[in-house]
């Protein structure tokens, strides 16, 4: 084996020298595999690929409107970081709650209200400073907070902590929490869990009682009388509330390193998030996006669609539009049109890429999202908030 390697190195060295000149020819033609240190500056990569345009132009463009409802465009980004009062730059999640915005950071829960940030930490009753997920109960207004160290109910100032020791919570690392009527669902490091706020009863869903290989869950969403669980390594688990029955959706090819057919089922068994709206289930993975309309699956990969990156941290659907938090920017998609928000390198300016089929247009934007590594998103009315690797941003619908 050592010999082999040595040979390979030798060959590569020789080859490299031989093809040095020719290399630059290929540079602009092929989408190249990336390395971390020199991952392409997205501007370059995309600007070469797409044509240019202006924002004003694009918002009136026919190309991005659908027959029924035009794909919304957001802009006027305003960014908040530690300098503006956030407790940390790394913001895992964001949730709009009426007049206030709740942001989960690596150093506590930040609440933006009346143009001011206020931070809640462990001293205030937060289970752990790392806040990964937030949801608000529509019924009661209670805020449910998933942290790296347990689940909080934050109700009118009172923090209540649930963890795997003092309650029926499966595990203390809460990747996702959602409210579904009186029920609260969590995706944790030790299985999915449900909590009935009326009876106080906890449910745990693991490989022991649900069709999962292992109890690792990453995302959960509710919709259509069902609960969908993104089971890491187990695809998507569907739970029908009424019948209390489970079924699973996994990648039919059974292999981790490939996707045999894009549309044969969920793209990959390592799922990172699920969201449901307008009778559509969207599934995020680090390997692409999947859409399920109840009968058939459709997969989207970055090499042949407008999806900017296969690496999707989180997603959230709002009506027909799904918002995708990728490592290359914020992406929205309604089944036809892709709109991607990116940041220009070393600049406060941003850009928007709009892809319809093979047609892609880039629009410059005077403002941009805080960072292209987007981790969380929430929209409400004409406002969008995103949380990123370095700060949170607020955008407005462009009319």
């Amino acid at each position, binding site marked *: 084996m050592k010999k082999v390697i040595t040979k390979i190195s030798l060959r590569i060295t020789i080859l490299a020298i031989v093809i040095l000149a020719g290399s630059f020819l290929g540079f602009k033609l092929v989408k190249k595999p990336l390395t971390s240190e020199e991952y392409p500056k997205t501007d370059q990569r995309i600007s070469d690929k797409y044509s240019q345009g202006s924002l004003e132009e694009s918002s009136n463009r026919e190309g991005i409107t659908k027959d029924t409802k035009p794909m919304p465009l957001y802009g006027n980004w305003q960014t908040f970081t530690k300098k503006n009062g956030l407790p940390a730059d790394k913001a895992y999640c964001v949730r709009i709650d009426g007049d206030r915005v709740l942001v989960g950071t690596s150093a506590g829960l930040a609440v933006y209200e009346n143009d001011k940030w206020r931070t809640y930490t462990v001293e205030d009753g937060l289970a752990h400073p790392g806040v990964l997920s937030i949801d608000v109960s529509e*019924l*009661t*207004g*209670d805020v449910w907070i998933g942290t790296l160290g347990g689940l909080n*109910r934050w*109700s*009118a*100032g*009172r923090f*209540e902590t649930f963890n*795997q*020791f*003092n*309650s*029926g919570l*499966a*595990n203390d690392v809460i990747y996702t929490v959602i409210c579904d009527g*009186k029920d609260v669902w969590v995706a944790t490091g*030790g*299985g999915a869990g449900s909590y009935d*706020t*009326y*009876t*106080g*009863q*906890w*449910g*745990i869903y*693991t490989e*022991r*009682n649900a069709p999962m290989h292992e109890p690792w869950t990453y995302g959960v969403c509710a919709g259509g009388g069902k609960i969908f669980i993104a089971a890491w390594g187990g695809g998507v688990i569907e739970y029908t509330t009424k019948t209390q029955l489970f079924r699973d959706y996994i990648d039919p090819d059974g292999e981790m390193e490939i996707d045999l057919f894009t549309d044969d089922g969920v793209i990959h068994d390592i799922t990172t998030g699920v969201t449901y709206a307008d009778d559509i289930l969207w599934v995020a993975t680090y390997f692409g996006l999947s859409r399920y309309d109840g009968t058939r699956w459709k997969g989207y990969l970055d090499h042949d669609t407008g999806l900017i990156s296969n690496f999707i941290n989180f997603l959230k659907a709002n009506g027909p539009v799904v918002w995708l938090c990728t490592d290359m920017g914020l992406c929205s998609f309604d089944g036809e049109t892709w709109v991607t928000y990116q940041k220009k390198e070393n600049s406060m300016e941003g850009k928007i890429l709009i892809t319809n089929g093979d047609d892609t247009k880039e629009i410059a934007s005077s403002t941009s999202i805080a960072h292209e590594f987007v981790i969380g998103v929430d929209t409400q009315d004409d406002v969008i908030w995103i949380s990123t690797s370095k700060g949170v941003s607020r955008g407005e619908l462009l009319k």
Partner: protein
Amino acid sequence: MKKYLILIFIAGILIILVLARKPALNWSRQHVNYITAVEDHPLNCLSCHLYIQKEGIVAKLINADYLSPFNMAVSPDGSRLFVVAQEGNKLLVINTQTNKVIDKIDVGENPHSVIINNDGNTAFVSNQWADNIFEIDLSLLKIVDTIKTGSGPAGLALGADEKFLYVADSYSSEVSVIDLQTKTEIKRLMAGNNPVGTDISPAGNLLYITSRRTLPMPYGTPPMTELTVINTTTQRVKERKIFDNAYIMENVAFTPSGDMAIATLIRPKNLIPAIQIERGWMMTHGIGIIEPGDNGRIIQLLTDDPNSYYSDPFDIVITPDGEKAFVSHSGVDYITVIDLKAIRALLAESTPEMLDTYSNHLGISSRYVLKRIPTGANPKGLALSPEGEYLYVAERLEDRIAVISTEKMETINTIDLKGPSRITVARKGRRLLNNAGYTFHNQYACYTCHPDSHEDGLVYNMAGKDMGRNLANVQTLRDIGDIPPYKWNGKNSSIYKQDGMRFSTILTRTESFAFDELDALVAYIVTGIKNPPNLRYNPAGKLTAAQERGKKVFYRTHTNCGKEIPVKDRCFTCHPPPYFTNMLMVDVGTLSETDDYMLLDAPQLNNIYESAPYLHDGRAATLEELWTTYNDEDKHGVGNDMMKDQLNDLVEYLRSLRDAKYYIEDPEIYQASTHLKND
């Protein structure tokens, strides 16, 4: 000849009786000495054995069905007084002109509160042990609707426009919001722990709800009790007012101007070594004042005097002129009249630091207490006539309503509710249990730490031998007649002993009960205390799927790996039905460094869901913690092999456990355990 034989026979019997008298007396003396742990308790079989009969003809004969008036409401025109008879399960209607009961309406089990709408044509009664509300048409005096609520509906409030009814669900610690158009519960909001009392602000936009038990607090930290503020416009919780170091907040009332709301409360001293009673060292009682508004203060003031305590404040009403507040002290049979002008003046002149000191000050009450009005036994609910000239007081253990002139501050009349005219031994015992007169300076009653004869959720530093040692989690009094021994260390083999001389030396610190009093107290404790139905987790005896699975875990004999669990380490060995205790002493590895070595009495598990925190020193905040945190060595049952979902099932099963009578009636449970034992 025959006669002769009979004579001989009778004579023989007499001789035997005479001969046997001495040994019989000796035996009785020893028996009574053993049970009572004193040597001078009178030898009277009946005084003990007759009155502890729970069932049968004798029990029927010696006991009586009392009404026990609890909460009240006055009709908007003042002509009718509606009284909830808690034990009688009735709503009594009283004509306030004649002061006579004119009607009795049967309501649900253990009714708690009644509220009348503005038109005076509808009453709502909360049935605490039926988890519903009765809507009563007052023109027909008939129940016209039943509305489902959360568990243990207690205090009631109508929204300003009377479209919504708010219910404090005392057992599930929620507030049910009921749409009165559809007569359905539309949602539940999280309230404090064990919410009971309600009042709506004069403007109608804020609903205040008191709670009795402390919020779950980290071990060894002071209790904190919540007063929940609900915005009736958004129907969401607006704020949670936290009362530090207070609990048992039974009721709250707004002043007519809305400048204050005042709640009753108790300030316990559970964290301080229980080494004396002098100077409010165990319990103090008072009021909590809330100034509404965003920066409103929360103030606590005592209604006690340095050498006299006014224990167990229950209800509070404020006169329409906003000048006087009346507080019923159910532990001492007094109404305290509070001068609200003096309160306002005190609040106006005091800095936060001063108020902080006042909250522990026993002398400050003389600034605002106008008068103490004596009442009959156990005054609970209060109601004012619409103009505020009369105060009605529900004398619960007197089956009577007192009518007090608010101006003269004297009782001017009483209304006999026509309950049983005699006072049974158990009733006498109940009065004793509720009365603080048997504690030095009336500082607390049995009831204070055992509200509703249950437990108060606190852990006390009883300072057994040393001051910082042997903390004790208060245990319920329910069913205890059947499951000796007593105290966590099981040192007392009978209730007589438990409540005897030592009890007075270390707990009440005044003269111990007289023998007849002790007999009465025991009679009540043994016969008169019921478990509320477990409607929340096991309403009809049919276990949920999770509870069924949990039951299997409870009765299991093998671990998940198939290893046999030693008999002593199985749940049901120490906790067998019907009381889920084998009444034996055991070490389950839960003693802490601050405990002297002792074995612990296996506690009963009926209605265990109501008894957080757990373990002898209350270290476990939840049932889960018993096994996740305090059972490292598998001494409290083998459990470390359990998966989390199994533990959840076990907890669900434990929550399903209800009154022992169901397990006595249902032999299937026994079979289950014996069957499994043979596995």
